[in-house]
């Protein structure tokens, strides 16, 4: 059950519920633009050539941006919620120019704090989980 503002609500969610999947194209300009906005306009994040000079296969997405995209996934599911904690491990490269899927699932509920624990992750088109994380979200 959802409401217009709150989306997912504490009473309605249960462990095992999946967050709606988001399919996202990591366009090169999109990655460059956000990397610049977060003060990380480094070659590896802004163009293929610069990234290759650093020994990478091509332009990559900053870890800080993948973290933010997982937060975006959580708040698209629960726009009335508040993220209390989000922890991520950057396991692989999220190459710019590719398409990724943002996924998640509810793993626990805390009735006292009205929070839920979620597993969240970013998957490449090849199915590799390039970023994995856990989050605590307070729900209305």
């Amino acid at each position, binding site marked *: 059950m959802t409401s217009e503002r709150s989306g997912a609500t504490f009473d309605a969610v249960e462990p095992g519920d999946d967050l709606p999947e988001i399919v996202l194209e990591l366009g090169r300009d999109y990655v460059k633009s956000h990397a610049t906005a977060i003060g990380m306009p480094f070659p590896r994040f802004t163009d293929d050539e610069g990234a290759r000079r650093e020994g990478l296969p091509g332009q990559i997405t900053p870890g800080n941006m993948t973290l933010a995209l997982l937060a975006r996934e959580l708040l698209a599911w629960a726009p009335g919620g508040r993220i209390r904690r989000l922890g*991520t*491990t950057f396991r692989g490269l999220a190459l710019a120019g590719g398409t990724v899927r943002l996924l998640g699932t509810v793993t626990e509920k805390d009735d006292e704090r009205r929070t839920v624990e979620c597993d969240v992750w970013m998957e490449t088109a090849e199915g590799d989980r390039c970023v994995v994380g856990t989050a605590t979200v307070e729900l209305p």
Partner: protein
Amino acid sequence: MAFSDIDRSVIGREYDRMTYAPIAVEDIVSYARTLGVTDPIYLDEEAARRGPYGGLVAFPTFVVKLRGGMHMPQEVAREMTTGGFDAGKDIELGAPIRPGDVITATSTITELYEKTGRSGSMWFVVFRQHLVNQHGEMVANVDSRMMQRGRTEKEAAR
């Protein structure tokens, strides 16, 4: 000098403190817009006034922009010279950031460790930016794990 020789007393010592200029509306909006966020509470002052925070707030992960003035203390940076990678990030969030907030970031190293895998040894440094606003409220603790391939004895001797 090698990673294992770094004086562990560096752990927990504040090595950087930086107070930022007041957070501008444009910074908050630009962060959300370039990320592709569409919720007006992060983008539109007028619409945000009717929202749950009663005004514009920064998207939660905006806090990772506030990395302080010095990336690592010198004695650690000296050993992490071959270009490391961001291995992960943990953020704990408190008060939301609003336009005009004056944020102070203090930085400490919280962990230094080495792991050995199939490709050799990897060095890890975890540093924390503790962010507080002008009211003394905790805004965030941002823990960043940096990783780099360990240097061989031959490389270290160069």
